């Protein structure tokens, strides 16, 4: 793609997005929708920054990020190890597969009550639910990656004398990377959704709490601001993870 075409595409995107915002702004300003129910974007953002101290907002963002990083990191670690081990060691896979298949269809949010019973109302219960959001897509894609390795690669490595753990870590794991990366990306998206929901239902800090609290206070502007903030955070972090993945495996595997 040439530079000018790229610029053209980007410009069209900006025009499309811009006109949507202008339309929304006008609808609210001209009174087609009540600003009390659906404030214009400028009103929401400026209003929020006036009423809610910036430090509070940053505090909510920080709390949320900390939770999701913990839950996600645990999910990546457990999902990768269990998925890879299940795919590689047949006997282990036979044992883990039915348990995973049984629990996988249960949406992570449905675990919230049990998480509270097991871990109390504090941070661990939220981290646990976020962990589940990341764990299942990662464990299944790691397993799929391991069982789908081109047998020719393993055979080629065997003819060069690799076996056992060396064959696993130097050939099988790298070969499963693309699938694992897909799972990690999906896992991030899911745990992000879970994070917000968990904070809506049971939290006294975080971005989800911020908007739920604003509802009780009747601050529609803060809610709209919060929704956009959460969306933007999701977009940025997902882009970041995508970039890391592309850097790691993008040259040898089309992402």
């Amino acid at each position, binding site marked *: 793609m040439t530079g000018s075409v790229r610029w053209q595409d980007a410009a069209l995107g900006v025009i499309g997005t811009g006109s949507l915002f202008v339309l929304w702004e006008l609808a609210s300003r001209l009174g087609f929708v009540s600003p009390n129910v659906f404030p214009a974007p400028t009103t929401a953002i400026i209003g929020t920054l006036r009423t809610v101290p910036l430090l509070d907002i940053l505090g909510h963002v920080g709390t949320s990020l900390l939770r999701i990083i913990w839950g996600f990191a645990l999910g990546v670690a457990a999902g990768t190890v269990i998925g890879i081990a299940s795919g590689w060691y047949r006997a282990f896979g036979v*044992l883990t597969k039915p*348990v995973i298949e049984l629990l996988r269809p249960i*949406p992570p949010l449905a675990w919230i009550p049990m998480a*509270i019973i097991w871990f109390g109302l504090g941070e661990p219960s939220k981290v646990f639910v976020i962990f589940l959001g990341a764990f299942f897509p990662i464990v299944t894609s790691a397993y799929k990656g391991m069982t789908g390795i081109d047998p020719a690669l393993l055979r080629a490595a065997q003819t060069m004398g690799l076996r056992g753990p060396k064959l696993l870590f130097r050939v099988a794991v790298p070969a499963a990377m693309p699938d694992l990366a897909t799972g990690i990306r999906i896992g991030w998206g899911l745990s992000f959704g879970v994070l917000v929901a968990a904070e809506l239902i049971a939290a006294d800090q975080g971005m989800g709490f911020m908007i739920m609290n604003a509802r009780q206070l009747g601050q529609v502007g803060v809610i709209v601001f919060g929704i956009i903030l959460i969306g933007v955070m999701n977009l940025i972090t997902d882009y970041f993870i995508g970039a890391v993945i592309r850097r790691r495996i993008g040259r040898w595997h089309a992402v």
Partner: protein
Amino acid sequence: MRNSRIIGGLTLIFLLVLWQLAVTWGFLKPFQFPPPSRIGGAVVELATKGFPNNQHIWTHVGVTLWRIIQGYVLAITVAIPIGLLIGTVAVLDKLTLPIITFGRSVATLSLLPLVIIWFGTGELTKVLLIAYGCFWAMLSNVIAGVKYVDPVMIRAARTLDTGRLRMFVKVVVPATLPRMFVGARMALGVGFMVIVGAEMIGTIQGLGALIMEARTFYRSDITIVGMLFIGILGFSISTGLSWLETVLLPWNKGLEEVRR
């Protein structure tokens, strides 16, 4: 293959027995880990007496299912024509790309407080939230499906003097169907995720509500029954969808990769 299934089943039974014994011998607290025997009892209770306020399990399942179906069908019927349009008209695709990317990134449940303000805590709120989540998953797949129709197929159809409309109906749409099923499947996953969150607020009917209510009554056994039913429901619908796909698209075998 069959052997591993039997071993898998035995593993599950073994774990359940272990769990039961661990509670009986006092290693696990029955409130934190309600044993299988109690969960079985809770199923019977839910089927006969009902919980909470005599709401039978079938009411919960039915209500949840109905909400999902409404939101899901709404999302799909809106997303397919819009997706076909955006996918076909290149300028439209470029204009909407950032909007769609952002729309997908918005956490569906973060809209809950806003939608409550608009429509209250009733049915409409839940249906709309499900519809929102499903919509983007479906839309982006329909667009991608149209955009990546094999150009050789289009060229082949051109050589057969196919008109524009005919080309669209007879070539583009069928070629997009496999990708639509991918979207439908992803949308379903999103729907199940959203429904649980949506039902945890402002209702006592539905499986999400059942799970949450049970906790406030210290009935963890009922919570687990609710979780199992959501799992079974989700699993059955997605199995039904794959079955539907093999019936409707018997020619499609090559999309295994994207599907999961």
